[in-house]
């Protein structure tokens, strides 16, 4: 199952849980399942029906290019990271 | 840049007439490397810019071992340091002119302009003072001479009165067993304003071991270039030893009255005076002995 890493700053919402395994196909479903388990977490990760513009999602070592539609496969890791600009 | 008129007189007479006519609103243009920047940045104002480069007297170099050097006020730096006779006779002057700006600046910037801009950090002025140069000034009432040491009166200010023009700088003929050196400290290796500068001249005795006389001048540690008289006097009749030169360097620190600014702190500048005076004395002594 994919493993979702809870950002350290949101662990207060998960009672200290830092990783959650869940049966999902994409990041949108990750958010839904997280919200179901840890109410309030969606607002911290999303802006309306989109990933918060200050965040990006990484699936294993790839940076998701499709926002909430970014696919997540078996045994992959999901991380929520700040967006990075480069020079 | 604000609007101004331009004139390029061909004689000193014509220039002083123009100056008299425009008074405070006239600015002299030699190499332009200070004045054009200052006009552009609004640091100085001018209604009339007088280009002095068409006046033959101001662009002339006249040197002989007997009579010394008369350097026209508009002569650009490169003509000084590329002149082997002048470089040999007045090494501190060559040192100074070779490190003002980069090559592009040296193609235009003049010693006279550097003097008239009268920056406390000017690189040529300590050399002029230590070489006992004197400044020939033309004005409505004719010509007068002022010692280089007396020329600057404050940051950006000098003895030139309205209507007056620097014509040339005269250097006494070099004597045997004498030499000079200028060094400045800058964080980069070129293209920088002196944090501290020091120009030293020494006259050795015939044996080359004893200093008969010395002159030491400092830049960027006061409102004008400063003469370190006591330090220079301390060397008279003394052996040109490492210890004595270092002691003079230490003594020179006493005249320094620098400010804290982005280029350095008071403490650092005072320290650098000691370092640079010692280094320039050492180099001047070596040159006087023909060692470098």
């Amino acid at each position, binding site marked *: 199952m994919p493993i979702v890493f809870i*950002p350290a700053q949101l662990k207060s919402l998960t009672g200290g849980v830092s990783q959650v395994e869940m049966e999902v196909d994409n990041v949108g479903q990750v958010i839904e399942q997280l919200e179901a388990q840890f109410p309030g977490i969606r607002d911290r990760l999303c802006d309306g029906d989109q990933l918060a513009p200050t965040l990006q999602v990484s699936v294993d*070592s790839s940076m998701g290019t499709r926002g909430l539609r970014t696919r997540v496969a078996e045994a992959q890791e999901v991380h929520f990271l700040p967006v990075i600009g480069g020079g | *840049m604000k609007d101004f008129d331009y004139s390029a007189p061909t004689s000193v007479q014509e220039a002083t007439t123009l100056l008299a006519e425009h008074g405070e609103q006239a600015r002299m243009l030699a190499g332009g490397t200070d004045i054009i920047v200052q006009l552009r940045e609004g640091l100085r104002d001018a209604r009339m810019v007088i280009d002095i480069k068409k006046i033959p007297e101001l662009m002339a170099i006249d040197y002989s071992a007997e009579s010394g050097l008369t350097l026209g006020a508009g002569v650009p730096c490169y003509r000084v340091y590329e002149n082997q006779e002048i470089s040999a006779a007045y090494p501190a002057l060559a040192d100074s002119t070779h490190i003002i700006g980069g090559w592009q600046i040296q193609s235009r910037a003049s010693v006279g302009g550097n003097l008239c801009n009268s920056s406390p950090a000017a690189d040529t002025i300590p050399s002029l003072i230590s070489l006992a140069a004197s400044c020939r000034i033309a004005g409505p009432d004719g010509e007068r001479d002022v010692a280089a040491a007396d020329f600057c009166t404050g940051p950006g200010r000098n003895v030139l009165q309205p209507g007056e023009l620097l014509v040339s700088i005269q250097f006494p003929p070099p004597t045997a067993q004498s030499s000079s050196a200028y060094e400045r400290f800058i964080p980069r290796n070129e293209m920088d304003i002196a944090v501290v500068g020091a120009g030293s001249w020494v006259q050795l005795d015939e044996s080359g071991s004893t200093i008969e006389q010395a002159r030491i001048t400092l830049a960027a540690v006061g409102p004008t270039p400063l003469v370190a008289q006591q330090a220079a006097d301390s060397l008279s009749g003394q052996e040109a030893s490492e210890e004595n030169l270092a002691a003079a360097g230490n003594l020179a620190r006493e005249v320094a009255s620098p400010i804290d600014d982005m280029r350095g702190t008071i403490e*650092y500048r005072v320290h650098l005076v000691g370092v640079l005076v010692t280094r320039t004395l050492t180099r001047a002594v070596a040159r006087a002995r023909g060692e470098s």
Partner: protein
Amino acid sequence: MSSGNGSYRVIGTRPRRHDGAEKVTGSAIYGNDVQLPGLLSGFILRSPHAHARITSIDTSEAEAMEGVFAVISGKDFPEVADKIADLGEGAVNLSYLSDNVMAKTKVLYKGHAVAAVAAANVHIAEEAAAKIKVEYEVLPSVTWVMDAMQDDAPLLHENLCTDHMGEKDEKPSNTAVHMHFEKGNVEEGFAAADVIVEREFKTATVHQGYIEPHVSVADWTTSGRLKIWTATQGAFTARQQTAEVLQIPISKVVVTPCEIGGGFGGKIAVYVEPVVALLSKKCGRPVKITMTRADVFEGSGPTPGSFMRVKVGATSDGKLVAGEAWLAYDAGAYPGGMIGPGCMCVFSCYDIEHALVDGYDVCLNKPHTSAYRAPGATQVAFAMEQVLDEIAEQLGICKLEIRQFNAAKEGVRRVDGPVYPRIGLVECLDAVAQSDHWNSPLEGENRGRGIGVGFWFGCGLKSSVNASVNHDGTVNLTEGSPDIGGTRTSIAMQLAEVLGIDTFDVIPQVVDTDSVGYTDVTGGSRVTFATGLAAYEAGLDLQKQMVIRAADLWECPVDEITVEEGEFKGAGNSASFKELAQQLFKDGEPLVARASVAPDCATNGFAVHIVDLEVDPETGKVTILRYTAVQDAGKAIHPSYVEGQMQGGAVQGIGWALNEEYYFNDDDTMDNASFLDYRMPTMLDVPMIDTIIVEAANPDHPYGVRGVGEPPIIPPPAAIANVMSEAISKRFYDLPMSPPKVWKALSETS
């Protein structure tokens, strides 16, 4: 170790660049070189104060001047929603962006634009600007990050409250964002450590220092189309930002990216574009504004100054077991600085089981910060690499070996979570160990040698290209990546490699936003990687089309056509790409391909630099004696331009280490806004910069390319600081390590 040509025909060679002749003869057109009929010149009036409320602006006298065509100020700009826009590389709050382009109610830094004039020439524009009467109510200001975080600090934004990943404090603050990362359990980690080193560090604000000032030309035509020619790292982001600030559809804007005189991250945000656009709209003539050099320092985006506390623990064998960092970075006048990557990079070079990082993005009265080559990473490397050296010193371990022992490698998890794929740090460190430089003797007093390590992500983002085959078999390649360092050629080489043709059989062009698909900025070390990937894919498409057409031409089944090194064969026929292209031109539709990509991987670049230096103990001045930059390029497409990135980044880093800084007066205005006083390295301040290119192929690129632009700026301050300790037994925790500071440290010993 340097790249050989391997099995490639084109890749790894060093052809001249396609745009080279124009650039060495002066005929290349940069933004300032654009001339249009009726072109006016503009000038921007800027705030003399670091922080002030604008109480009134009277432009009447300026408008009345002869030769003045238009005057604008903040009130001429449309209201912009407080909304965050995704700019591809990073996100921006549009109201902040608009306010930064032209102040509306408050000025937040000296140099903040308050009004602008278009006139017959720049002198009149400047004189007119001086006649604009702006009244200010001067407010208390703050320019040091730790001061700005205090409760009683002057507030820049009355409604700004600290955001903790989506949760906001109630009380207003200059701290815009707090970030927090954890991995493992640091308390446990430190408990297991035999040695712990904790230090505090400060770095000054520095500027990218591109030689070309910001410049833009706008022509708001009567058709309603806004045409912009500008110096930008990304025409599409310039288009989007300009459209958003002006509240017009992006389809109304076309941006032509001119040749660009350096960017390094500083030419991504718009500064001048919306201003010239509004001036042009107002007077109906095209308008150009070129920033003065002082404007560039004071009114564009330098990169953050910082305060950092870093603590690292290791066991007696040198294994790093725990790391903790507390980082506060300048955001400048508006939120949104470089703290994210700072947090993510502080421990990114090493395998540390337990780590914790807190980071703060802090507003203060300096220009809004921008990216500068690996933004945020150079600061943390300066801290982390020194702490690591001190651990090595305490444990008596070789400084290279402790890095080799702890180096990040495939499978190592970073503090921000992701696990590295194949990376090349170990190979870089091994290359150091084997290098002539590392193994050569170094003698003399006040001299030392040391190393520093840096990591940068390198991103993919979006790129598009079009490739059209000419009837002589050459290929026109149009792309949207402004070429700042030879990328036309490094992209063209990848297309040439696929097609089996020569570099100069590809004719690359960088075109405007109407003429190619969306392309993100030239930044993030992405162009040779991502736009190169698009060119590669366009090449594959062309080849596929030609196989089908060759089968038709030679009357054989498609699967009988083979292509090897550009040679098409089938049914007893054979033709090179160029020959076949010429035949096909007479035989049906033109051959055209396009490709667009959005690679989702980071390219993960590492750099290790070796420095020898000498300190003059009398003046505190540092002379760099010898310098070697080692870097994993994945695959060097054009080795000369890879070396160029490494050398240029190294020298920028040397400047950052030794002299560069924004020097602020007591009234928080910048005192050294010129090249003379900002003191970037001249040619005389540096030695030759030797390079060693390591090639640990990036698995996510067909040729193995990794981004190379950013990593080389990261190690220099760290490496130089480490060598200072070797040379004079002094550690420097503040940047820059300028002569007065070095002398002061030395004088305190004696």
